[in-house]
């Protein structure tokens, strides 16, 4: 019975993680930047929504507004930081250090404004429990699954059916050729980071709705999501989403034998296994 409950809660966490993974994967596959600051956007989303909700803004509007703000912040990071560095032909290492700097800035502004203590959303409906047979779920968890699956489907549709989605995939597969054919990679990069930043707001708001907010809580989900992306095969949206769920389920099931504070070890162990035996991931394209 415990196993079933853990399995379900793994699925919930996995869905939320899956959205982090696909949003990171969009950025990484297209711009080739290891966008560490994405963890900051993830955290920022939760705090923005919390502030708006505390001022009486309806929950759904708070979520949408935080998506807009995060999209703008993401676009600014690309335009003011990554694009400038690219212009100077900065090495990969330099871009990474700058991204880490951006992460430190976002996290610590949040910590300075809201204190590093844990914050809880005051949304009574969110913790109402639903009993589905033997399994107990609250509304937030149910909503997380529904919205995450919808976000996954929407991303797949967007990438394969829309003009912008095709343009992004073209830039991702060959930036040089995209430049020549006037697909304007630098503009596409701005779109991609803005879209990914808006997308990461969904788990960024839904997960804290259930578990509370802390300024330095973004790094672990991003790391887990990155591992899922690599294990799924870089560039594969489905791979990133499916592997996120698999990793979260494994992590939750491992709670039966290993205490929770070691779960980062379980995740990392999965990464080491993949790195040693299948570094290209399960769903590798080509």
């Amino acid at each position, binding site marked *: 019975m415990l196993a079933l409950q853990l399995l379900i809660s793994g699925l919930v966490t996995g869905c939320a993680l899956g959205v982090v993974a696909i949003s990171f994967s969009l950025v990484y596959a297209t711009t080739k930047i290891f966008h560490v600051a994405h963890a900051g956007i993830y955290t920022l989303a939760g705090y923005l929504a919390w502030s708006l909700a505390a001022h009486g803004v309806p929950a759904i509007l708070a979520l949408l507004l935080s998506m807009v703000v995060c999209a703008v912040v993401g676009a600014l990071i690309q335009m003011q930081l990554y694009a400038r560095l690219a212009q100077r032909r900065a*090495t990969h290492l330099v871009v990474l250090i700058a991204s880490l700097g951006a992460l430190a800035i976002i996290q610590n502004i949040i910590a300075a404004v809201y204190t590093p203590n844990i914050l809880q959303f005051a949304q009574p409906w969110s913790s109402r429990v639903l009993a589905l047979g033997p399994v107990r779920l609250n509304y937030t968890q149910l909503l997380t699954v529904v919205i995450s699956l919808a976000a996954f489907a929407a991303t797949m549709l967007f990438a394969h059916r829309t003009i912008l989605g095709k343009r992004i995939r073209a830039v991702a597969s060959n930036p040089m050729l995209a430049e020549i054919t006037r697909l304007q990679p630098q503009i596409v990069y701005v779109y991609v980071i803005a879209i990914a930043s808006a997308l990461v707001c969904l788990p960024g708001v839904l997960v804290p709705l259930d578990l509370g907010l802390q300024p330095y809580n973004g790094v672990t989900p991003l790391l887990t999501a990155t591992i899922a992306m690599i294990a799924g095969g870089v560039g594969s949206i489905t791979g990133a989403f499916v592997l996120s769920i698999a990793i979260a389920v494994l992590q939750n099931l491992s709670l039966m034998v290993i205490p929770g504070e070691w779960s980062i070890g379980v995740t990392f162990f999965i990464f080491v296994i993949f790195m040693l035996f299948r570094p290209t991931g399960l769903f590798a394209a080509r």
Partner: protein
Amino acid sequence: MDFLLSYIVLAEIYVLLGLSTNLLVGIAGIFSVSQAAIFGVGAYVVAHFLMTATPLSFIPSIAIAAACCVALNILVTLPALRVSGDYFVVTSFGIQLLATAVFTNWTEGTGGANGLPGVPPPDVFGWSVETTAQYAELCTGAAFLGCLAFYLIMRAPFGRLLRAIREDELAVAAAGKNVLRAKVSAAALAGAFAGTAGGLYATFLSFIDPSSFDLDASILLLTMVVVGGARTLAGSIIGPFLLLALPQLLTLVDIPTTIAAAARQLIYGLLLIAFMLFRPQGLAGERL
């Protein structure tokens, strides 16, 4: 006077760490945010061997700590670098978070979040180091040896090989050099420096806790190298001395203590971005 001396001691310990980070990030070009974790392993290993029922003396403890850190760094970098640099980014984040989890949760070994008090002062070949002035002598000696080693390594063929890899990895590989082995060796050397620094740190403060070895500490180390300047000896010395003075300067500005830590980290973040945008070579370094 004591205050100034303890600043110098800490700065010299961080010079060793700066050399270690510079070797890894600046010279070998491997992005790492797990330097503080390796530093922590060194500190805890030394504390452990000085505090067991049959304590070892200081120098053997340091040697064991350095060996542990070398082994750990090889173990960590080898599989990741075999694949690609970005795999090591994930690995280093993972190692850092994992190390913090171990330092915080393995209560029997590390004292958990409460830390490990009462690390005895070192005894170097019969010279017992107790006052801050004596520590300053010890750490100056250690930092000098570290700098000398760094200088000699950089002049040796191995140092030239590392530089060449930074310039053009493909050309070096085409010239028949083993790139992976050179990078892993650089990481191993970085481990030795960090382990030694950890031992000095643990005995100087006589108290260690996980907060000195977390992700923020790793970011501080990276900032030191970026501000001081990558790939040069001078850079690894200037960075630590400047950045350790920063918290003292911040106490002059009137900010509430609750946000002091966040303000400090915020400044490190700003420095990282500003230097990457406007002066990637740091104050006294070469192009990163």
